[in-house]
């Protein structure tokens, strides 16, 4: 092998403390080195030309450059060598600047070290192999999991860019929590008025395939090439026939049995239902757990009245598979609202606030429904127990949030704002009413947010009391709220008509399971983990899987929308090229010596190790060996170090390359 060595002075940067000509001279004597020279600026055009020229003239097989950190100019020199006909992976960089000249003062020591570093690189390059970047085709289609505002935004952005989107929603309708809200902060515009057009746009978009009442069951493959299995839960209604006339729901004899999920249990719905009038798709589903037909085999009222014969009691769950290149996870959040400690639950609950025990203790989403014009009270401010107008209302913030003992240590971020909004909405509807807010701190960072809170206090005269409430109990139809005003240092007891708990936003219960399906990480709360907290906030550790909205952490609407768009942009970056290029630094198995212990599989963080059967010509199983899925392998080499017989090796960092470097240490 003919090796060329090039020592860069980097102006004075290396040359000041490293005697570059001497290094170059020493390198010339290394076995295998046929060319050695030094130059002021190797990375400059003339410097690169020196390398190219030497490659051509001396027919070099490999090149070692002594210069700055490989993180700086490895790519530059690889490109230069490739243009002169050497495979770019036959280039090694010795870091003479960051790791030598800049950190040492003694010229003799530094020069000696530089020679050692060059020797390491020369010995290593002897075992380098020509490698080609791995090219993987990209399926230019995206899967969005979750049809809340974040998922809707992501789906629309990708679809509008001209790529197909599969949108999976587990509920019968898309819209998510935003569709339940009455008004939004800090503008107090109607939530449904701004959301519904988006939902319709999704439904009508030719590039969006909407799979409602469906859940992701299984995912295989890797970035650019995922194969996703989706369970389509049986709606008991033939979607293609249904016109959404609503007659079935109207005639369903089960009117009071089921609590409306959409109204957060404040109203009832029939067994066959659409969650809310503006639902998309406007196709009802039968809740088999309450339907008379499914319980007794009789009734069939909906079937009788349906003119389109769309009701199908025999429908079963079906499975569809979709090929996609990227996956956007936008599964949202749920609210922490538990009264007593439920058995086998990780949540301790809030017995002292009596949620679930007292009808007039409700959570934030329930208040949204009461305040909403489409809600159970048609927007009239009436409390659940006796449908009277509450004259005194108490809002309690941080229930479950910032509570290590009974909830979660994090701040749910949106409660300060929505509580201010609630108090405002209340005051706008009940002019003679009194509103109290128990808070610990008001966190109103955001455009026009602080102004909004001040407006609630100064213009609408909401009473803000700093302190947590200790207990709530009911006497004579009044809720006795025992608190403390920590600013005045005085106990506060309020006899309230209605109490609204700003309960914590928490991760969906199924989040860890989905994370395992997608092979992404999640934090101790069950929120999905981003790849980097600062620079890669919507990416995950699995290539091609992106995050949007409150499944990542508590987020408000504008943030969820922004994140949806960001995740869409990340997908579109992926779709920008036909082929994905990847560094060829991946593991490879030597099937002849692999004993199939699969320790490599155990240590692989990417599920990249598969089982492969080796058969003889007659088809008899010879053995089962490990096999690396090059799409999934990220090149950490943990398998290589774990394999007792070194039957799996990391290309680019193979044992012989490192061995050569360590052996070169003998001459240090």
């Amino acid at each position, binding site marked *: 092998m003919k090796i060329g060595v090039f020592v860069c002075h980097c102006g004075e940067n290396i040359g000041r403390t490293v005697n570059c000509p001497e290094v170059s001279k020493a390198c010339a004597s290394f076995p295998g080195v046929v060319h050695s020279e030094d130059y002021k600026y190797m990375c400059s055009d003339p410097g690169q030309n020196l390398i190219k020229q030497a490659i051509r003239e001396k027919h070099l097989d490999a090149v070692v450059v002594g210069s700055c950190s490989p993180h700086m100019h490895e790519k530059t020199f690889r490109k230069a060598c490739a243009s002169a006909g050497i495979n770019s992976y036959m280039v090694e960089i010795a870091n003479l600047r960051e790791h030598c000249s800049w950190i040492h003062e003694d010229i003799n020591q530094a020069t000696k070290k530089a020679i050692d570093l060059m020797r390491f690189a020369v010995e290593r390059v002897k075992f380098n192999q020509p490698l080609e970047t791995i090219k993987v085709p990209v399926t230019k289609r995206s899967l969005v999991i979750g049809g809340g505002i974040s998922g809707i935004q992501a789906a629309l952005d990708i679809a509008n860019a001209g790529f197909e989107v599969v949108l999976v929603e587990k509920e019968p309708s898309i819209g998510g929590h935003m569709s339940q809200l009455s008004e939004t902060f800090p503008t107090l515009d109607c939530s449904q008025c701004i959301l519904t057009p988006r939902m319709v746009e999704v439904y009508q978009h030719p590039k969006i395939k909407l799979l409602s009442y469906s859940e992701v069951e299984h995912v295989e493959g890797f970035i650019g090439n995922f194969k996703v299995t989706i369970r389509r839960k049986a709606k008991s209604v033939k979607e293609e026939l249904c016109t959404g006339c609503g007659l079935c729901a109207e005639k369903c004899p089960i009117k009071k049995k089921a609590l409306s999920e959409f109204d957060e249990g404040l109203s009832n719905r029939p067994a066959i239902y659409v969650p809310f009038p503006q639902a998309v798709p406007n196709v009802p589903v039968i809740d088999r757990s309450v339907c008379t037909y499914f319980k007794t085999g009789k009734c069939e009222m909906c079937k009788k009245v349906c003119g389109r014969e769309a009701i199908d009691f025999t429908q079963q769950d079906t499975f569809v598979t979709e090929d996609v290149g990227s996956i956007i996870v936008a599964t949202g959040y749920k609210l922490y609202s538990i009264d007593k400690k439920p058995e086998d639950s990780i949540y301790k609950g809030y017995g002292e606030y009596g949620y679930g025990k007292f009808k007039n203790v409700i959570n934030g989403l329930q208040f949204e429904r009461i305040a909403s014009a489409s809600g159970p009270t048609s927007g009239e401010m009436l409390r659940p127990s006796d449908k009277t107008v509450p004259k005194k209302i108490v809002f309690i913030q941080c229930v479950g949030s910032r509570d290590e003992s009974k909830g979660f240590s994090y701040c749910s971020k949106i409660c300060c704002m929505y509580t201010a909004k609630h108090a405002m909405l209340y005051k706008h509807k009940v002019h003679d009413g009194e509103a109290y807010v128990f808070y610990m701190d008001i966190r109103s960072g955001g455009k026009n947010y602080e102004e909004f809170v001040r407006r609630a206090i100064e213009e609408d005269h909401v009473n803000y009391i700093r302190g947590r409430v200790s207990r709530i109990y009911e006497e004579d139809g009044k809720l006795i709220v025992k608190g403390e005003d920590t600013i005045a240092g005085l106990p506060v007891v309020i006899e309230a008509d209605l109490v609204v708990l700003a309960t914590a936003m928490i991760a969906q219960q199924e989040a860890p399971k989905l994370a395992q399906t997608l092979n992404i990480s999640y934090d101790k709360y069950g929120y999905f983990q981003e790849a980097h907290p600062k620079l890669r906030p919507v990416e995950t550790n699995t290539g091609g899987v992106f995050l949007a909205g409150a499944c990542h952490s508590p987020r408000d609407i504008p943030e969820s929308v922004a994140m949806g768009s960001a995740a869409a942009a990340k997908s579109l970056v992926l779709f920008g090229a036909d082929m994905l290029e990847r560094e060829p630094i991946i593991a490879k198995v030597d099937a002849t010596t692999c004993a199939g212990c699969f320790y490599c599989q155990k240590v692989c963080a990417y599920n990249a190790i598969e089982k492969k059967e080796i058969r003889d010509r007659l088809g008899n199983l010879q053995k089962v060996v490990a096999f690396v899925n090059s799409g999934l392998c990220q090149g950490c080499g943990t398998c290589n170090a774990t394999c007792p017989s*070194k039957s799996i090796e990391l290309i680019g960092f193979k*044992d012989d390359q490192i061995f050569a470097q360590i052996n070169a240490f003998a001459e240090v």
Partner: protein
Amino acid sequence: MNELKQICKDALSEKKARFIIGYKEDKNKRIKPFIAKTPEDAEQLTFNHHAVNNLAVYLPRFKNNVEGKIGIVVKSCDLKAVTALIQENQIKRDDLFIIGVNCSGVVLDIAKEFNKDNTQIKCKYCQAKTPPYYDALADESKDFEMPDDDQAELMAKIDKMTSDERLEFWNAEFEKCIKCYACRQVCPMCYCEKCIVEKSEPQWIDTSSTARGNFSWNIIRAFHMAGRCIGCHECERACPMGIPLTLLTRKMGMVASSEFGYRHGMSLTEPTLIGTYSTSDKEDFIK
């Protein structure tokens, strides 16, 4: 005795196993591994204090077994090897018919009678006379008072040495090594198709029997056994030079237990030590 024979006979005649790997007594009254293929063969199967061999060493060759179940006679220590081999995909549980024997200790020197001075080290600290799981169990145990665990005392002594003394101790031991690899051949967990010492590109471990080569070989062997060694002590029994190899493997087992609360080969459901991690693994030694 009859019980074991009966179990094996039944297993073979009822086709619960297509053959049984067990022990028989040869003409010279020595106990040897034996494969019984028919119920008649089973008449020759036996078990006593001289049944030292760990028969699990034969199992990996049946890892692609497709025919019928393989019967195997195991002591509780041997069963650990079976467990480990199942966990490492060298044999499938479904392919095995495990005949456990209650064991009250085996001999160190097979030429001599079983008594207090002729007991394997492993038996002295054996915690389970009965294998933790099996398909059939033969009770062959007799009451026997175990002598003291003198190896533990030796280990404690080594622990007390200075590191230089320890290095000297081990160099003196490893110096004896003739690189015959008997320790590897006899080990049920050494099933690699090509041992690292035989890999020549690169040659991580010198093959020559020099101080340095011996040192590397024994360290790496012990490390490859860490969390995997099931303590059958066959390596030490096989070593022609009498190197106390199990000091190393037992030490690694003790480390696995003290650092990770891990005991290998006890349960099929417990994850392996290597290949898993805990975010709370100790790191007081890492700056």
